[in-house]
Every structure is written in C-alpha cells, then in structure tokens.
C-alpha cells in the first residue's frame, strides 16, 4: 500500500519527512517529489552523492586529450609551415584543446545526467504520469491494499 502525504509548504514537508525517517521508515521505501530542488532532502534520506562528477571529469579529460592529440597529430601528419609558426604551435593548440575540454565535458555530463536519471523515462512518457506543484512523500508501507 502507498501512503501519500501532500504539502504546499516546504517546512511542513521537511518536518514530515524527518519524522518518517526518525520513526524508522527506511529511506528506500520513500519516494519524494518536489517542485524544485530541496537540498535538505538529500541529507534526510542519506542519498549518496551523484556520480555525475565522474562523467564530467572523464569528459573534460577526454576533450583535453583529444584537443591536443588531434591538433598535434594533424600538424605532424602534413607538416606545412604557415605564417612562420612552428609545426607544433602549442599556444594556438591550447585554444582548441580548451574549447574541446568544455565541449566534451559539457556534453558527456549531459549524457551522464540522462543515464543516471534514466532519461528518457519511456514508461512515464507513455503513461503520462504528472508531477504537480506540491511537495509529495509516498511511503510504501509494504502492506497489502
């Protein structure tokens, strides 16, 4: 059975959530939806920190590596001297590497977000599940209906 608590007020919602956790309800039996991000929920439910950081770090590192590898690699592949600059003109390649760091970092972070949040949530899209402006706590009591 799912017991639902709805609140218009953030303070009352947080108070109820704390009460439920304190009374022994396991956080995994609670599903919380809010109209905006509420930091306190993560502390109360002891949610693990997001793994998104790893995607960001990987993306940025990949972009930096790709930026330098590609620019230096292509310059050495066909060593054309332009404007009197050295073949491996690092000051200029820094710019390309910097942009690719940001590009890969941002895009891979976004893809990581989709992956970790299981988006697009096809069942939810098909079912047309809505989320309202209220703060909602759904407790799975484990009892039969």
């Amino acid at each position, binding site marked *: 059975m799912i017991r639902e608590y709805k609140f218009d007020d953030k303070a009352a919602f947080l108070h109820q959530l704390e009460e439920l956790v304190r009374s022994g309800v396991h956080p995994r039996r609670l599903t919380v939806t809010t109209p905006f991000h509420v930091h306190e929920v993560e502390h109360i439910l002891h949610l693990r920190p997001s793994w998104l950081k790893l995607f960001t770090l990987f993306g940025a590192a990949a972009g930096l590596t790709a930026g330098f590898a590609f620019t230096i690699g292509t310059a050495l592949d066909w060593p054309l001297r332009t404007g*009197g*600059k050295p073949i491996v003109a690092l*000051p*200029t390649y*820094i710019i390309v590497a910097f942009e690719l760091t940001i590009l890969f970092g941002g895009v891979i972070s976004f893809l990581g977000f989709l992956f970790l949040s299981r988006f697009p949530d096809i069942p939810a899209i098909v079912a047309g599940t809505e989320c309202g402006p209220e703060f909602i706590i759904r407790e799975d009591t484990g009892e039969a209906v």
Partner: protein
Amino acid sequence: MSKRVTTLAAAAVILTLAVEWAFRGASGMALVVAVLFWAAICQGMVALAAAADLSGARWFLPLREHLMGIYPLLFAFPALFLVFSANLFVYPWMEHPTRWLAPNFFVIRNAALLLLTAVAAHLWIRADRRGARSAKVFCTLYLFSFVVTQSLMAFDWVMSLEAPWINTLFGAYFFIEALYLGIAATALVALLRARRDPARYRPVLVDAAKLIFGFALLWAGQIFAQYLTIWYGNIPEEVGYVYKRVAVQPYGAMAVFVLLAMFVLPFGILVARAAKTHPVPIVAAAGLVMAGYVVEKLVFILPAAPVHPVALALEFVILGAPVACYLCARPDAPPS
C-alpha cells in the same frame, strides 16, 4: 586601531627612507617592487570591499569592516613613491624625456593618483561609518581611482622601462592582479578568523577560496591574451620584449614559476571541493599567488633595470610589517 595603523605606516615610510638613503641609489627598482606588491594587497582589499558594497554581495559582510580598516596604510604609498623618485635615473627615457615621460610630471601624477586613492578610500569609509548617503559616491570614486592608479602603475612604473613598447592590456592586467592578491589576503584573514569562530567565517572562507580559483583562471586568460598576441604577431616592435623574459635564463625559469604559482598550482590545489575549507590548501594557494606576483614583477623589471636583493628584502619586510600586524589583529577591536 586606525591610530596604530597610521603610526605603523609612518614608521614604515621613515624606515624605507633610511634604507634608500643607505643604499644611495644602488637599490634600483627595489622599492617599486615592494610598493607594487603591498599597494596591490591594500588597495585590492579595499577595492574588494567597495565592489562587494556596490554589487550588494553578502558573502563578504563578516570581514568587511576589518578589510576596509586597512585604508590608512594607503596614505603611505604616495610618500613612498616620492622616496623612490630619487632613483628615476633607472628609466631609459630620463636621457630623452618626452611630454608624458618627463621626471617632474611622472612623479607628480603618480604621487597625486596614489594620494587620491587614499583620500577617496578615507572619504568613503568615513561616510560609510556615519551612514551618510554620499558613501556610495565616494565608493565609486575610490574604484575609479583604484583602476586609474593601478593602470598607471603598469604603464608608467613598469612598461616605460621598455619605452616605446606598448601593451594595452597591461593596465587592466595590473588591477586584476591587485584584486587577485586582495582575495588571497582575504582568504588568509578568513582562515585566521575561522579558527576562532568557524560558524561565522567558514562560509566566507569557502567563497574566498572559490574566488581564488576563479581569479586563477581569469589571470591565466589575461597573461595568455598578452603572450599569444605578441607571439603570434611576431613583430620586431614587441616580440623582443617577450623573448628576453621567456627564452633567456634565469628569466625563463622565473616565468615558468610565475605560471605555476599564479595559475597551475592554485587551480589544481583548489579544484577539489574539500580543499576549499581546509587550511593547508588555502594557505598554499594564497602564498603561491603572492610569491608568484613578486617573481612576476621581477621578470618584468630585471631585464631592463636593476633591483638590489637586500634592499628589496628589507623594504618588503618594512612595508609588510604594518599590513601583517593589522590583518592578524583581533576582530573585536573597534575602528577608532
């Protein structure tokens, strides 16, 4: 507190005069390097308070009074510049002065600007303490004079050593560095306070650490913009200036140290979230930034003019003593 600071500043000026007299011109640009550093810190901290006021930033509030209270020291700098004026012979343009680069005009305008900055700070802080509405006007005036003074420190004091070389970003670069140093000093003050009152000062510390991180990137962008433009254009009028500071030793090694100290290391140290609240990374980052600033000024100046190391060390300590005394002072001391 204000009286003590003023006394210390006066003592610093007299001691510096004694040192300069003792070296009789052999000190070269030592006083300029010391003044550049300590003026950047003092003016930078007051400028941070001014900018935070005008933008309504609240993170700064617990430290505001203490940082603004350093302003009496600003009055020392015009006096110190007048002391330096005995060493103007180091500048190459002294042999063939022009309308702008003429000794009397050079001394008068720079001393006047330093004095204006100090007076503007004084007017602002006095009006602020009285709750007068004119405080915002003087605050803006201080920021204007800070920008112009730092710009002229760049163009006149340092860039004119290599006249007629020009670098249009130099002025903005100096005042960004002054803000950078101001933030590094603010982080150290916040750290000291956080030991006694963590609840009040830890958020300030975290924000100051984030700003050091951000300014490290901004600084890197500025130095890169200058280097890239000059390197890429490769024109004789300016490339020689960079060449002798990057490709000739020991200046090349010093330049690498500057890059590490002002960008790579603070960035790397402070990138982790945990590092922004831990004392060791913050002291390391702030210390590196300050050391990097001094070495950077030496890289700019040494290829063109002498700097006596003993004079530099003495004047550094003499000018630093009042600043350090003030910043380490207990927070409860009311401003007099």
